């Protein structure tokens, strides 16, 4: 291919006129090239260091002091707070509740989300409407919905006991020591299924139609088409929903605060709620900092475990 270069001045002028060079204003302050990245980046990194990294590190240090809220005196106590809180029944209880809550919400809301997404994806019409309905809980203020749920769970007169009380033979879930956490888990599932479904739907749009049709022509049944064609495309979405659902379950605070205030007794006190009770309500920063450290390590552990082991295995399964 030959390129004819404009040779005459007139042609050059013509080309130049057509190109309409953008007139970039000269910057008022001219930084040396070297400093430009620093100027553009440092506000963001500085604020992250100040409001995320530094506090996360400080939490470990705050736990080394005793904070007397009345006198305002701060005394160094070494690992006393760690020893006291880590062995306390309150922390063990909150840790157990948090893990149990995660166990009751993560598998069900991820599987439920996948099911809803596969269903919606198979529809020829009405997909937008169903997606919108299932997504509604994500767009609604959670504490307001938690208030509605508390009213639904109201003993005897509430909607839940009206409908299911006779079937299950148990009423007043939120005031029962063994069912209160399960009641909160129902709300957690209700809130997350639609969000997970939306993530899976986004993944399912990446499934190749030609592969689906080829599989169909080759006589693959619905299950095999799902397992060998759709599933590999949505494996990353699965990892993502599991990570997001787990970390949000570990941080659960709002529904417990509105629906049960951590009760009855301590039966729905999660780590985040215990942290709030200690640090904000009782201004016992030493104890709260230890709980913070525990929650922090738990979050890191789960993220690392899911990303490294489970996550890569799932992703590899996706590239069979």
């Amino acid at each position: 291919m030959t390129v004819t270069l404009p040779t005459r001045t007139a042609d050059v002028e013509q080309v130049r006129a057509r190109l309409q060079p953008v007139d970039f204003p000269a910057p008022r302050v001219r930084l040396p090239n070297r400093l430009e990245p620093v100027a553009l980046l440092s506000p963001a990194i500085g604020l992250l260091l100040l409001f995320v990294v530094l506090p996360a590190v400080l939490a470990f240090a705050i736990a080394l002091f005793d904070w007397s809220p009345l006198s305002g005196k701060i005394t160094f106590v070494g690992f006393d707070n760690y020893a006291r809180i880590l062995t306390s029944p309150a922390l063990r209880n909150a840790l157990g509740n948090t893990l149990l809550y995660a166990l009751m919400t993560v598998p069900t809301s991820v599987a439920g989300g996948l099911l809803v997404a596969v269903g919606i994806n198979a529809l020829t019409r009405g997909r937008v409407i169903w997606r919108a309905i299932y997504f509604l809980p994500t767009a609604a203020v959670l504490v307001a919905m938690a208030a509605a749920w508390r009213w639904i769970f109201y003993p005897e007169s509430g909607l839940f006991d009206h409908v299911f009380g006779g079937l299950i033979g148990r009423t007043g879930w939120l005031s029962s020591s063994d069912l209160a956490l399960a009641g909160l888990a129902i709300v957690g599932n209700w809130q997350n299924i639609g969000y997970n479904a939306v993530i899976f739907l986004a993944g399912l749009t990446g499934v190749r139609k030609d592969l689906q049709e080829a599989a169909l022509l080759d006589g693959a049944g619905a299950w095999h088409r799902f397992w060998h064609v759709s599933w590999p495309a949505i494996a990353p979405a699965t990892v993502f929903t599991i990570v997001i659902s787990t970390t949000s379950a570990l941080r659960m605070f709002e529904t417990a605060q509105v629906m049960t205030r951590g009760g009855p007794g301590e039966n729905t006190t999660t780590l985040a709620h215990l942290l709030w009770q200690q640090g904000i309500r009782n201004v016992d920063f030493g104890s709260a900092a230890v709980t913070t450290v525990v929650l922090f390590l738990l979050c890191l552990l789960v993220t690392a475990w899911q990303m490294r082991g489970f996550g890569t295995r799932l992703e590899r399964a996706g590239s069979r």
Partner: protein
Amino acid sequence: MKPHPLAQAGIHLALAVGAVAILAPFVWMVLTAFTPQDQVFRDGFLPTEFTLANFAEVFREVPMLRYYINSVIAATMIFGLQVIVCLPAAYTLARLRFRGRSLSLWIVLTCLMIPTQIVAVPIYLLFSRLGILDTMPSLVLPFISSAFGIFLLRQFILTIPQSVFDAARLDGARSWATLTRVVFPLVKPAVVSFGVFSFVSHWNDYFWPSVVLRSTDNATVPFGIVRFVSFESGTSYGAQMAAALLAIVPLLIGFLIAQRQFIAGFSLTSD
């Protein structure tokens, strides 16, 4: 492949059953909100009388309008500042080469894994020393730099072909001009999606306000609602549901109008 009409109907039916569970709390909230207080604890599902008294009570007891305004101010300030701070950072991390680049990227990725609950107590202590607890800045400051926003926008900027940046540079654009004239117009859809995500998250957030707020002066909608619903109204569920309904209505209207942006904002997080 032709979908089987019976299978289609089956899927619709199954989705409808699930949708009943999804919609039940909304329906129950609306029904209760319009039921007179003395009939709230009756048997039967549909109210026999219709009243606005619950809403009147809420507006008498709760400064709803102030909560709305506070929420709008807080969420708007957070998002506005996030764009100003995070977009340049995202561009720098995506396209500029400099010393400390990988360290900065590492900081951003680490911050992605640290939830707000972890920083609550240390920031509470910091803000109480600075004397800014219970103020608007205490609601906004911690969220101005969003690791998630930086990460997301960086992913988008990486999809812009390098030739676009080369062209801008040849035309004499330095970084700032490239950012405002080239990057911003191209990533606007991502900024809008992130905006929806950020706005909705902070509008709905209750944890952070419950850490830094004390009074109702700067109370956002969730903080104000919980105050009323959990402490002040006892068992007047009619008024509670009216307040809850007032809390969720603005975003639900927004969702119905801009459904696509909402869902994009929440699902682009997964890509």
